[in-house]
């Protein structure tokens, strides 16, 4: 056990070391764009080993353009060009134009109508989806055969996930949605929880990207929760939104816009929370490591080398916090989804019976 934990520690240090190398390598003129590390890219970054460019799929002026990667797009068509090559001459390597900013525009400088290109966040989103499928389809087959329901769960694989599944079913779905309807929503909550968890964990891996650090991904997840809430909402829910019971009529009119606004702020907060937490963790790690380079600029490389262990240890600490936050944010997203669904589908019939 002790050896195992030492191994994990070394592995973590190794991961951080790789990030430092990548950072030092990518910095031209000692400038590193922090936001650039968080935003979406049209390539998978495995620096210093390899950079894999992703396919480009663009719809413009009634035509679909499909290219294997950005380089092939730049070389095969005159319709599009890199945004940096409008004013300056294109950079070429062995006679092949290479992309500079990956920001594709028309030759006239206007952006194309629709850019459906596959991006790094999307690739890691798909990876998380594949992982979810790969784990839970065999697992559900096991439960259908009876292992875990009638017999005891077998093996470490099933036991690890059964703890989490039972936790989500009993502590999240059952507690927040209620005895009557929780079974209908447990699959959704399980899917959301594991998808977010896997996406967050991908961001902790070397060269990994967490798709949840992209606001479009979290917005879609929040949209699903919003749709679930509204589609399965009870009559009581709509009554509370449009005609709040138990208050004087002028107050009912005052409460209506507030309640309507409340419908949208809940998923909005859900979306922003996940996005901000995941993106800020990444920025924090890069800022801490960047302090080494700032020290090197300010006080010379000697002091930067001497103090670098402080920042590496702090980064390790933040990294572990990030691992914790990945779990907590997946949990918070799921429990808040369950809470909102529970509030909307609850028809209060039981409580009224108890009250009388």
């Amino acid at each position, binding site marked *: 056990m002790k050896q195992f934990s030492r191994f994990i520690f070394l592995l973590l240090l190794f991961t951080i070391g790789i990030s430092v190398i990548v950072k030092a390598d990518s910095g031209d003129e000692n400038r590193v764009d922090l936001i650039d590390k968080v935003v979406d890219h049209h390539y998978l970054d495995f620096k210093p080993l390899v950079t894999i460019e992703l396919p480009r799929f663009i719809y413009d002026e009634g035509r679909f353009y499909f290219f294997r990667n950005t380089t092939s797009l730049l070389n095969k068509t005159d319709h599009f060009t890199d945004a940096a090559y409008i004013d300056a001459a294109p950079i070429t390597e062995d006679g092949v134009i290479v992309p500079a900013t990956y920001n594709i525009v028309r030759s006239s400088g206007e952006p194309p109508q629709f850019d459906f290109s596959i991006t790094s966040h999307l690739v890691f989103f798909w990876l998380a989806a594949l992982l979810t499928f790969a784990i839970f389809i065999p697992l559900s087959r096991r439960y259908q055969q009876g292992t875990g329901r009638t017999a005891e769960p077998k093996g470490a694989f099933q036991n690890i996930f059964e703890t989490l599944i039972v936790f989500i079913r009993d502590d999240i779905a059952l*507690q927040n949605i209620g005895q009557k309807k929780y079974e209908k929503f447990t699959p959704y909550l399980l899917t959301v929880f594991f998808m977010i968890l896997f996406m967050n964990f991908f961001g902790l891996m070397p060269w990994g990207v967490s798709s949840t650090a992209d606001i479009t991904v979290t917005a879609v997840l929040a949209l699903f929760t919003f749709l679930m809430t509204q589609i399965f909402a009870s009559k009581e829910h709509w009554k509370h939104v449009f005609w709040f019971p138990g208050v004087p009529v002028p107050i009912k009119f005052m409460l209506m816009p507030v309640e309507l606004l409340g419908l949208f702020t809940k998923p909005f*907060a*859900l979306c*922003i*929370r996940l996005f901000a937490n995941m993106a800020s963790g990444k920025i924090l790690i890069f800022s801490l490591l960047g302090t080494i380079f700032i020290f090197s600029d300010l006080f010379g490389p000697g002091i930067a080398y001497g103090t670098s262990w402080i920042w590496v240890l702090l980064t390790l600490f933040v990294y572990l916090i990030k691992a914790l936050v990945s779990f907590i944010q997946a949990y*918070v997203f799921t*429990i*808040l989804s369950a809470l909102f669904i529970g509030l909307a589908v609850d028809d209060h019939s039981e409580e009224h019976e108890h009250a009388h």
Partner: protein
Amino acid sequence: MELAYLAAGFGAGITTIGAAIGIGMIGKGAMEGSARQPEASGDIRTSMLISAAFIEGVALFGQVVCIILALS
């Protein structure tokens, strides 16, 4: 333009103060509650996380405004 950066910095700091006070008070309440009644600590932890998440949400709205200020 420089004032926008100043406002963004101040805004980020002030929102953090607000969120820190709020979450600190929740933590205090939860600690006292579970110290007094250890058998209820599971329920208390859940509701603590939910309330902390709500406060965090409000703070994040503030931070998003600050980011927009700083980037515009």
